[in-house]
């Protein structure tokens, strides 16, 4: 179990995790979640991240997405060390490089589907007309053009998650991070989401890291790694 670099030889990887530790300080005790962890995710990979509940999957994903910082070690994305960026630079960095897809979709209930998808574009320098064009493209890619003016509560779970994915890809981010994107959906709706993610990866070359509990979902990924007791492995632990 050396480094988890399955990329081409010499490839620095789009994402590099080196010696990352993460400890949460809770009340009196320290919770050691990640222990000296290494991981390389090459450009264009669709990586599934599995492991028991509480093993630190979300924690690792948050470190890669710049939502949190490691206690030890470095996180490098597209050649840039992000663990040392200030909060403000990190927010800008996320806007430019990361698309997030959440288990519970996290759409704004007071906004229509297209306004939800537009949100990340408000952080770019695009004008209104251009934003509208990008929104239309993203909604078309997830097959929801006809639902553009609908509010989240009028959409099914699967549709809401497709809006979430459209929001995640509308800025054409370097990396799409999905935390249990099918965790709240039934099999059929989940399959549609997985089809979509797979297509984004295969046809559009999106690099995707997806946390999941579901072997059915991880089967769609190009590679699966397992997190257990703070460590990563290529094999599930029995």
């Amino acid at each position: 179990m050396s480094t988890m670099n399955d990329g081409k030889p010499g490839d620095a990887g789009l994402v590099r995790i080196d010696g990352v530790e993460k400890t949460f300080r809770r009340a009196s005790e320290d919770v050691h979640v990640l222990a000296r962890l290494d991981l390389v995710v090459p450009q264009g990979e669709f990586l599934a991240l599995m492991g028991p509940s509480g093993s630190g999957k979300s924690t690792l994903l948050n470190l890669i997405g710049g939502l949190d910082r490691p206690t030890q070690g470095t996180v490098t994305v597209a050649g840039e060390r992000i663990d040392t960026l200030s909060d403000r630079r990190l927010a800008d960095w996320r806007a430019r490089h990361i698309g997030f897809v959440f288990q519970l979709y996290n759409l704004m209930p007071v906004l229509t589907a297209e306004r939800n998808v537009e949100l990340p574009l408000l952080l770019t320098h695009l004008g209104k007309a251009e934003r509208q064009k990008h929104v239309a493209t993203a909604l078309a890619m997830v097959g929801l053009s006809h639902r553009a003016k609908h509010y989240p509560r009028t959409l099914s779970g699967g549709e809401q998650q497709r809006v979430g994915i459209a929001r995640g890809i509308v800025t054409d981010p370097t990396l799409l991070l999905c935390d249990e994107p099918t965790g709240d959906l039934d099999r059929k709706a989940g399959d549609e989401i997985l089809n979509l993610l797979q297509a984004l990866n295969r046809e559009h070359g999106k690099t995707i890291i997806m946390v999941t509990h579901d072997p059915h979902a991880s089967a769609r990924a190009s590679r699966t790694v397992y997190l257990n007791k703070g460590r990563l492995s290529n094999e599930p632990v029995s």
Partner: protein
Amino acid sequence: MNTLVNWFSQIGSIVKFGLLSIPQRRGSVAATVIGIAGVVVVLVGVLSIAAGFRRAMTASAAPDSAIVLRSGADSEMVSGFGRPQVRLIADAPGVAQGPKGPLSSAELFVIINLPKRSTGTDANVPLRGVEPAATVVRDNLHLVAGRMFEWGRNEVIVGAGAAREFAGLEVGSQLKVGRASWPVVGIFTANGGVAESEVWTDAAVLQGAYNRGESFQSVYTRLTSADAFQPFKDALTTNPQLNVKVLRQSDYYAEQSETLTRLITTLGVLIASLMAVGAIFGALNTMYSAVATRTREIATLRALGFGSGAVVIALMLESLAIAILGGALGGALAYAGFNNFQAATMNWQSFSQVTFAFAVTPPLLIQGIVLASVIGLIGGILPALRAARQPIASALREL
């Protein structure tokens, strides 16, 4: 350039979420709006008393009119002149000339007792003796009922405020003056000014009735212009035959109203400040719950890259919007409830009643809105900072 525009649209969209989500927490928002409205009603309401009193005291004081008192006298009550001095004052430079001579009215007044309509108890009312120029040395005097009293006869006209506040002052009724009864022959208005609280008669008649001989207490003059005041004053104060004090009427009344208006203002500001502290906690609570119910939404926006500065400003704006709504409501209620509310109070400088109307003026409404805004901003800052400082990763986990 575009980044700035986008920064505004970031703020705008967060504000929009906040305002659109108000229906979901309408209870706490309504409580805050009403709380802030209450503070503003009290502030504006109390200050409208002071503003109304000040307005009444200065309503008929024209800038080109003056009042002359004996030197050292703070009010007409303690002032006094004889006929020769009055003549010197009327002949001073700067006094405007009418068809019948200088526009100068030497006056005196006595205090009579009349029952208040509201309580039936006696209160002090000034009975003022005036000279023919009295109606032109003041602004905005109009007879609204009956006629002017005849010079040399035992007749009175009554200010509209006094007629409203006290019993037995209708046209046709008899006013008890000493042992005699004088008919009320007319009612006049003075643009809500202090003269409306008085009863007027001929100065010479009053002097006779009260054994005042040829003595007066004050001289009211109309000057040729506002600029004529200084030379007029200089001429009188340097005249060795006179020992007088010369004031613009507006300054005199402003001074007369100062004690009471300051007292009321202090009281109003004090009460409103105490209430404002309570309202701040209300706003604080509302915004904390606004932030709490939107923890995940705000964390999501920040995950997408929205800046914490934009979050803070947006939440402050939301709090401000709620507060201004409360302020506007309070201002409207104060206006509806207090503007033109008729009242009478003791004017301590003349020991007599002044009738006046509460005045909810535009500056007061602005003060009310400003106070509401301050409450909103203070109440919003801590919740906004909390929302912006919350670690995104853990906030995202909240449902």
